[in-house]
């Protein structure tokens, strides 16, 4: 972990990010990730970070931004994407990424970080729980409108 560097994502990182995401979801989404880079790759309130090993291999990524007054909530940091290479899990990569994005959110003056995870995604749910995250005072709702 000593050689791990967390930095902003660049266009040259997208191929590796797409690969990490594909390993977790089974889907390659190049257009989606290009859009994420355009929208969250710059700006003080947006963060698209990657964890890079000394040899240039990316071990993981995290995406989020500070959002104001959404759903009546005071400004808080939202994390809406995180991924780590399966072979590198349980080595502190995701923890380092969450710490880095939390630091960035803190510098923007927010004191809460929030995320939304599928109920059956035990791996990611367990990770965020292990980081001290608890249920937020909001309930996500949906309706089939098809």
């Amino acid at each position, binding site marked *: 972990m000593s050689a791990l560097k967390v930095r902003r994502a660049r266009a040259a990182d997208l191929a590796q990010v797409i690969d990490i995401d594909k390993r977790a979801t089974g889907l390659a989404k190049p257009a989606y990730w290009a859009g994420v880079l355009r929208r969250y790759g710059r700006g003080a309130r947006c963060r698209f970070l990657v964890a890079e090993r000394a040899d240039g291999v990316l071990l993981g990524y995290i995406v989020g931004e500070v959002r104001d007054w959404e759903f009546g909530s005071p400004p808080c940091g939202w994390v809406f994407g995180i991924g780590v290479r399966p072979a590198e899990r349980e080595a502190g990569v995701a923890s380092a990424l969450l710490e880095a994005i939390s630091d960035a959110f803190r510098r923007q003056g927010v004191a809460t970080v929030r995320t939304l995870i599928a109920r059956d995604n035990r791996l990611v749910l*367990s990770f965020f729980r292990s980081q001290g995250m608890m249920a937020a005072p909001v309930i996500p709702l949906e309706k089939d409108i098809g």
Partner: protein
Amino acid sequence: MRLQKNTLLALYSVLEFAAQPERQLSVTDIAAALRVSPHHLAKVLRTLGRAGLVDSVRGAGGGYRFVANAKRVTLMDVIALFEDIGPAAPRGRRARRGAEQALETVLAEIDQTARATFGSVTLDTMLKLIGRRGRG
């Protein structure tokens, strides 16, 4: 999801063991800490032993020690040993009233959230939470 007494005993016990994995603890010690009879607790610990969460050490000074991976075992893994956590049984063939069906839908939603919560909190996370509460 309402937890039965044995389930709560199992959760408290396994957290005691997981907090000190290098130590073997006697049934008497744990029972005293949890204020239950050693006989009652022994039955709970045997179930935890069969599930591979604790290992019994026989003989004088014997007891149990934690042998699982606290970062992998979730609260739901322990709960499932003591509770019937399958889907609610259908209530016969007669047509149910709309209100009954609607209420079951809402209760099922609560149940799914409870399962997701128990299934995502590991023993290691619980120990961190206990530590934070202790310091707070």
